[in-house]
């Protein structure tokens, strides 16, 4: 096989696999043409910053979903992570690394509980993590009933620093996305994720540890959510237990599914997830730039999701379920 043929194939495959890509480009074109300011560096930076927090959670969540599980508790875990990090950085005056580690630990604890209940006790991950969504929100509000703010300049680095001109959260998000993509493609356990998602029984009979891999993914997803919470807390220099990350789980899930990840497990790609995240960010930003009235924005967002689903349907993945 020649290199050239490899490239052509890859191009065709990408277009076929990710019909969201041309649509995203079209959307960007339309917004740029109609507003004239969509492609301004400042605007792109804003979109990237929003998208970064979503991507950091979406990437591990996508891998978890490919393995056949679901985590709906990320919205509350995000809040908890932000609260713990903010409390450590602000009230306790700890340096940034300690604050971030604290958030990661809190997230990992939530993830470990999810993992035990879903992977080892075998409960439905939908209900368990829905329950955790409520319980962790309550816990956060009970522990930190009042908003925290004023975390100091050390902590501001996390959300505000520029590394080679790129915001730190965006760099982090890129690292998470790359790590997830490399994991899925290159590491044995990454291939096992697909096997577990498609056919748990067959994966088990092949000697794969069908509990430990998803369990680790639960922990990583929750830790990532907590990290995203710390980043948001740093960007806003404040965090409130009642509202932080409220509804975030649905945003992330939508991005993941738009990106072509199958809710039933076994199919999906990180490039698709990135496109899903950017699609959502672009849409929301463009509608704001166009000054679309509030309620029309809701209608447009809903319809865009449906159009996105239509496109995701065109990918070869979705032929998985028999569709006579």
């Amino acid at each position: 096989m020649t290199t050239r043929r490899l490239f052509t194939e890859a191009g065709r495959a990408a277009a076929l696999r990710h019909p969201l890509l041309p649509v995203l480009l079209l959307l960007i074109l339309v917004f740029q043409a109609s507003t004239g300011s969509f492609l301004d560096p400042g605007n792109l930076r804003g979109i990237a910053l929003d998208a970064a927090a979503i991507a950091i959670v979406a990437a591990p969540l996508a891998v978890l979903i490919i393995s056949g599980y679901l985590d709906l508790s990320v919205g509350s875990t995000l809040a908890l992570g932000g609260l713990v990090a903010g409390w450590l950085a602000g009230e306790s005056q700890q340096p940034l690394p300690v604050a971030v580690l604290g958030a990661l630990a809190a997230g990992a604890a939530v993830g470990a509980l999810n993992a035990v209940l879903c992977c080892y006790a075998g409960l439905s991950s939908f209900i368990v993590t829905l329950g955790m969504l409520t319980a962790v929100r309550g816990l956060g509000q009970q522990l930190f009933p009042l908003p925290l703010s004023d975390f100091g300049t050390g902590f501001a680095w996390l959300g505000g620093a520029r590394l080679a001109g790129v915001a730190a959260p965006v760099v982090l998000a890129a690292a998470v996305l790359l790590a997830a993509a490399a994991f899925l493609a290159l590491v044995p356990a990454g291939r096992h994720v697909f096997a577990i998602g498609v056919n748990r029984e067959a994966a088990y009979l092949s000697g794969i540890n069908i509990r430990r891999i998803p369990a680790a993914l639960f922990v990583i997803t929750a830790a990532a959510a907590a990290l995203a919470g710390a980043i948001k807390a740093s960007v806003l220099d404040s965090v409130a237990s009642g509202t932080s990350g409220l509804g975030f789980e649905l945003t992330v899930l939508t991005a993941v599914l738009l990106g072509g990840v199958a809710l039933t497990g076994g199919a999906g790609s990180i490039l698709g997830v990135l496109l899903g995240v950017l699609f959502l960010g672009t849409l929301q930003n463009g509608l704001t730039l166009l000054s679309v009235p509030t309620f029309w924005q809701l209608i447009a967002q809903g319809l865009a999701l449906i159009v996105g689903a239509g496109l995701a349907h065109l990918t070869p993945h979705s032929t998985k379920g028999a569709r006579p």
Partner: protein
Amino acid sequence: MSLQVTGLVKTFNGVPALGGVDLHVPAGQVHALLGHNGAGKSTLIKCLGGAFAPDSGSIDVNGVPHARLTPRTAIAAGVAIIYQNLSVIEPLTAAENIFLGQEWTRAGLVNRHAQHEAATGLLRRVGASCRADDRVGDLPMGQRQMVEIAKALSRSASVLVLDEPTAALSTAESTVLAECVDELRGQGLAVVYVTHLLAEVQRLADAVTVLRDGLVSHRSTRPARDRSALVAAIAGTSGAPVAPLTADVPAAGPPRLEVDGLAGPGFGPVSLTVGAGEIVGLYGLIGSGRTRLIETMFGRRRRSRGTVRIDGRTITPRNPADALAEGVALVPADRRRQGLFGLLSALDNMLLPALRPLARHRLRHRRAERRLFTDTATALRLRPAAPRAPATAFSGGNQQKLLLGRWINRSRTTNLLLLDEPTQGVDVGSRREIYQAVADLAAGTGAAVLFASTDPEEIVALAHRCLVIVDGRVSAELSGARLTEAALLSAAHLAPTSPDERRTR
């Protein structure tokens, strides 16, 4: 290298599936494990592979006793298993499937290149025509089976267990597999081989064990000689071989089914007729297009041209429901994907399309349902004949009977019965019952029966007439005295290359 099973017991909800089974397979022996559907063969094998934990008993692999195995410990102990229900992972490539769970790595990363090379070699060795980087979900069943065999070989095991490995293979592929097994025996592996095909037993086995209702009913170290004893041990009756039912060829009359120039993607044009009460077999290699022909007649696939007439009336079913309304029924080949409702009860599985015809005042008529179930189950020797047991709790052959019963029961008026590999996985005794049921249906109602099979023995036993399909077209027709296994084999293998190979190139 040997396998020694002692006193193995396994019960499901108090019902024993294995009642204390002993099995000894020394190194360098191919040991055939036989038995009727539901005898416990697959259950025994699942205990060997760690899929089930036995209630008691022990499994010695190479002298090391295990009270229970897990898939990991089984693999580590050197046991490689090909299960009756294929366990390939569809979105992964053939190479990834072969090395699933045992990946070759370099610095923690999958060594794709080395895996690809090794997989290519393994696939060549088992005679597969697919490539190592083909996505398994895109492969036909036969090739998937080859991938599974290659996976078992890749493990450098000392005990190899195959549960009905040839059920989805054609004669040519079965021959390659037999050569592989021969070679492995030569290398000193202990091989356990489950099959319902006595020809394979005679070709391959050094010893046999026959299970009957979870107990060993017969052992022999000279299986090639006492075929009728085997049939008796399996079926539990006198050991007459499966007798051809073609004695009563129906009287010639106007054809019930006329197919004229039917063509679709990958097959045709095909023209054929089937008379009232006539049973016509379609013989061919895997991928020759029989399934596509049958599914097109059933409205499951689009035709590109041609007509199908029943009793002189042209039918153009756009979907299976249309075909069923015309009295056309299909028992599909892919049992798990196209036929079975795993979670639902046996009664649901067998009578789902019959619920409406049986209903009174549009409500379900449970007593009639129960009666029809019992009658059909008896006719087909379903074991257990438990209407409420979920389909997944039935053995492979009994699941097939549930599907046959869906269309071969008295609630239906069938004009054309299409069967795709009707007795795959069915034991010799039940096979006779099924042939009888099909023949009764044809003779009794005058239905036309068209069935595809990869087993020449089955064609000879069931068909009045056989069409040999090569490359999507009818290449020969055999009937009467000319319809013999030898004639079928030579007619099918006359084709220059197997269509499968051409397709994947």
